[in-house]
């Protein structure tokens, strides 16, 4: 990481995301690879790019002395390597991790839940409460970004022309047409990922990110104004909250039916059907929340960037410190 150009660093980070997702495929973690593919290579690159376009591409010359940091890092790594001497070897079947709850998940989930994708079963049924917490964290992060990035509509004068080069969406006819033909397939594929998560890799998290990526693509190609016309920011915020509410209300319903929180056996008369319904609904909730939070984050950044550019255009001295 000696590169001074943050843009190049972002590109390399995107490559890193691609490679780590390939590693996850090789390690049998198809669901994780799915998520990492859409998040690590897609959304995080995009966010970093937006931020770099605000903060400037070049890193200033640094005068730090890295020796203290190097000392800390080498000391920590030696301690960690020393600690690994007790670790089970790679791939050994009798490692402690494979002995506690994992056999139950692997052996009994077909009888108890009847969902072929065991990761989905663990995520959405056995550890539903945990996942609920994660969804709330995502939602909270979305609210935080919204609070930090929100721009008052007065500050954003839409009529004022910007003296920046015309955007991609005005220049490139070819890419607009190709993207237009792609949109239906992306949405169809996202729906497939959402509802096929029980049987193959996929689920609410991945589908949410793909949906969001499609909307962000639209915003990039046709401009933010067109995108906010398609899906209003207020609607997105409402939907993000509704997704969490949908997830939580499943737990409340199971409580009212006499079971534990998120015990889907009590959702319907037939426990297996109840499990299926519960997983379907909470995956839907997760998908809605993740989609809306990701769109919210990206729109927030883009709006802020535009407001910042306008401010810089009005008062160029102040902006370019």
């Amino acid at each position, binding site marked *: 990481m000696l590169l001074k150009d943050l843009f190049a660093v972002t590109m*390399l980070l995107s490559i890193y995301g*691609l490679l780590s997702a390939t590693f996850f495929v090789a390690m*049998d973690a198809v669901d994780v*690879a799915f998520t990492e*593919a859409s998040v690590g*290579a897609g959304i995080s690159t*995009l966010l970093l790019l*937006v931020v770099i376009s605000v903060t400037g591409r070049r890193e200033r010359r640094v005068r730090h002395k890295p020796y203290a940091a190097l000392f800390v890092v080498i000391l920590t790594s030696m301690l960690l390597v020393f600690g690994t001497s007790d670790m089970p070897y790679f791939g050994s079947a009798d490692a402690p991790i494979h002995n506690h709850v994992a056999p139950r998940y692997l052996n009994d989930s077909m009888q108890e839940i009847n969902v072929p994708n065991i990761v989905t079963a663990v995520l959405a049924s056995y550890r539903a409460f945990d996942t609920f917490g994660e969804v709330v964290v995502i939602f909270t992060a979305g609210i935080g970004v919204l609070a930090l990035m929100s721009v008052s509509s007065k500050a954003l004068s839409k009529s004022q022309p910007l003296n920046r080069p015309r955007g991609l969406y005005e220049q490139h006819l070819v890419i607009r047409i190709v993207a237009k033909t*792609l949109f239906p397939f992306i949405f169809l594929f996202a729906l497939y990922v959402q509802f096929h998560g029980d049987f193959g890799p996929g689920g609410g998290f*991945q589908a949410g990110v793909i949906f969001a990526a499609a909307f962000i693509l639209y915003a990039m190609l046709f401009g933010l104004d067109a995108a906010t016309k398609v899906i209003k920011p207020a609607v997105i915020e409402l939907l993000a909250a509704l997704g969490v509410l949908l997830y939580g209300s499943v737990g409340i319903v199971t409580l009212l039916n006499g079971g534990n929180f998120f015990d889907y056996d009590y959702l319907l008369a037939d426990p297996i059907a109840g499990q299926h319904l519960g997983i379907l609904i909470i995956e839907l909730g997760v998908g809605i929340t993740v989609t809306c939070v990701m769109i919210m984050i990206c729109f927030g950044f883009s709006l802020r960037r535009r407001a910042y550019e306008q401010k810089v255009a009005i008062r160029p001295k102040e902006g370019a410190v």
Partner: protein
Amino acid sequence: MIIAATLAIFCAMILAISRAFMGPTLYDRILAVNSLGTKTVLLIALLGFVMGRPEFLDIAIVYALINFISVIAVLRYSDSNQFKENSSENEPIGKER
């Protein structure tokens, strides 16, 4: 034969990564990332067949889509003023200093 193809794609990926490291311009890096993404799609498809469970090709489809989106994103934001390429990337840090 599949394994041979996998290894070949792997070598191609290594070449693409070295181009992404070397640069020298921004667009070379974008090109390398794009080409690497395409190769990753192929690698995942091939790996599915090597491991004997080819039903996980969904990941490869996601890759193809996300690759497209990220290239568009890079170009979209490289169009803004701060990213203007002045003949070479390696010239001294911007004029505002």
